[in-house]
């Protein structure tokens, strides 16, 4: 037995060039499989952690997924708004601790503009109830003096190269990245007063201004376009401050409760609100629903990495089978000195197991290194936090699957050699 393993090792060393290629291809497949799996779980995690600490999201009556899409992910737009009266009514509910209204619809170079209150920055949380952190400057003041102040998400500041004091112009509606098609609020520029730290959530891609500022820039607009100059009504940035800037409508509201127990109570209250049709959704439930839709892409990722693994295992089988003819003499010698067909089978299976094991371990190490080194870059570029920690259960599963499949695959040439050596007799008949 040990003699056989010794011979297997020497034989493998003799063919180290070819085997190294097989090990490499298995390592690459394993690394790809494990990295994709890590990416998949971490994307899912950052997705699920896009909002936390908010008990209910309230908007006009629509689908929960659609409400989450525009209120949290800033994708698409609301079909209708909700009245500030309703928001105040919800805030007055005895179980409600706080309400942060948000107003959407404008953009800056493809990034969503969020009109809200200064309270947003203390109430909104993501991940494991992590609060927003101001990396540079401060949040907007919310007063008339600081009317045209903006706070940028980390990605906006980085991508545009903006820093404190930068003057920016908002565009009406959600225009393309260059804002070419949108009418601009060029008469009322904003000043950047703060930049938030990266969160890996849609907050990074948002521009935050006060609700009053959004009212101000739309004072002389009607139906989504500025009043023509002929109408002779223009309101300067300065004059806007003299108007009543309290918003009548907002897009949605984030609601925090005094205790989780009341969540269905408040949800019923909102859904049954009589003055206008409203809807309240639990973020966690709606996120799960949303993920079920996006899960298709996730499955495609998994299927792709499975195919990669399959191809490299097929190459293992092909390499060993191709080498089998040239090894027939070697196997005949072993049979002549007393090795049985089962020894031959064991010899080939042991080699396959070693090659697969080595490849899988190298691949896992490669995946860990890749996540470790590329993690910060991925966080910066895509806002996905890759955790370089211990392997997940699914990763262990994939690792075991690669090992098992590799050993099974190495049995294919082993069985063929077994049959050949049975049929060959004492010397190979070629």
């Amino acid at each position: 037995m040990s003699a056989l393993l010794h011979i297997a090792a020497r034989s493998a060393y003799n063919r180290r060039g070819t085997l190294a290629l097989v090990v490499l291809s298995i390592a690459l497949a394993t690394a790809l499989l494990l990295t994709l799996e890590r990416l998949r779980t971490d994307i899912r995690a950052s997705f699920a952690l896009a909002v936390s600490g908010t008990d209910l999201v309230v908007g006009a009556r629509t689908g929960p997924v659609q409400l989450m899409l525009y209120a949290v992910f800033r994708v698409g737009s609301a079909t209708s708004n909700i009245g500030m009266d309703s928001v105040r009514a919800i805030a007055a509910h005895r179980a409600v601790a706080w309400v942060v209204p948000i107003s959407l619809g404008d953009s800056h170079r493809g990034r969503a503009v969020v009109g809200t209150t200064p309270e947003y920055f203390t109430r909104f949380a993501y991940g494991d109830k992590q609060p927003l952190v101001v990396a540079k400057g401060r949040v907007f003041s919310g007063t008339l003096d600081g009317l045209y102040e903006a706070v940028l998400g980390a990605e906006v500041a980085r991508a545009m190269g903006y820093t404190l004091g930068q003057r920016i112009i908002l565009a009406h509606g959600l225009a393309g990245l260059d804002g070419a098609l949108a009418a601009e609020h060029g008469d009322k520029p904003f000043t950047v007063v703060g930049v938030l730290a990266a969160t890996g959530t849609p907050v990074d891609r948002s521009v935050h201004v006060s609700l009053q500022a959004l009212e101000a820039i739309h004072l002389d607009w009607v139906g989504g376009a500025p009043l023509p100059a002929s109408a002779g009504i223009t309101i300067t940035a300065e004059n806007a401050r003299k108007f009543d800037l309290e918003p009548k409508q907002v897009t949605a509201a984030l609601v925090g409760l005094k205790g989780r127990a009341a969540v269905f109570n408040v949800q019923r209250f909102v859904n049954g609100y009589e003055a206008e049709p409203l809807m309240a959704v639990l973020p966690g439930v709606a996120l799960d629903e949303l993920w079920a839709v996006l899960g298709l892409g996730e499955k495609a990722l998994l299927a792709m990495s499975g195919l990669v693994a399959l191809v490299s295992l097929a190459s293992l089988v092909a390499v060993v089978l191709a080498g089998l003819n040239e090894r027939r003499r070697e196997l005949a010698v072993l049979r002549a000195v007393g090795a049985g067909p089962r020894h031959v089978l064991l010899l080939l299976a042991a080699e396959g197991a070693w090659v697969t094991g080595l490849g899988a371990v190298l691949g896992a190490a490669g995946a860990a290194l890749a996540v470790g080194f590329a993690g910060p870059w991925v966080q910066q570029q895509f806002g996905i936090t890759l955790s370089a920690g211990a392997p997940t259960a699914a990763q262990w599963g994939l690792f075991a699957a690669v090992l098992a499949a590799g050993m099974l695959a190495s049995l294919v040439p082993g069985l063929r050699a077994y049959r050949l050596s049975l049929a060959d007799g004492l010397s190979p008949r070629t």
Partner: protein
Amino acid sequence: MLSVHELRYRWPGASADCLDIAAFELPDASTVFLYGPSGCGKSTLLGLLAGVLVAQSGRVEFLGQDWATLPGGRRDARRADHVGVVFQQFNLLPYLSVLDNVLLPCRFSARRAQRCVGSPAAAARSLLQRVGLAQDLWLRPAAALSVGQQQRVAAARALIGAPELVIADEPTSALDTALRDDFMALLLGECRASGATLVFVSHDERLAAQFDQRLSLPDLNLAASR
């Protein structure tokens, strides 16, 4: 030592018998020359004698035991214990040293290792010396040797641990005349010295004179005359 009765063998998938032999017997410590033209079934008969192949009918008794009555694993173990084999060429594992190649049978058979005089390694060295292989080659990989040298190593390997039967399948056909005569003398001498029965297969009848017994396979094989 070896006795064959009513042996019939047909390769899997073949339409006719390859071998049909009524009977023959090989005594202990004899040297037998088995000859016949290429393709007459010599290698098949060797496979049957060595227990690698099993006859569909008839008996091939080796040391009083019919190979066909043993399961595969036992046949392999028995072959490792009692049979040494020399092929026409490619006898050695190219990646093992000369010494390790000679020691191979002792790795698969405890009996062969036990029957070595002194340790197996000592026996291997002594055999390599007797087959006339220069000592500086012993630790070189077998692939570095010439064909003539490889056949000598193969003879040493077949003889280590004093097996009762040595089978040689055209071991001289890759050698030129001078090397062939040397090798023949060496193999016959060593087999006689260790008391092994040598079954030597060749199509070259000029070698027959040096053997105790000569068998013509075409004459023995009834399948050939049909």
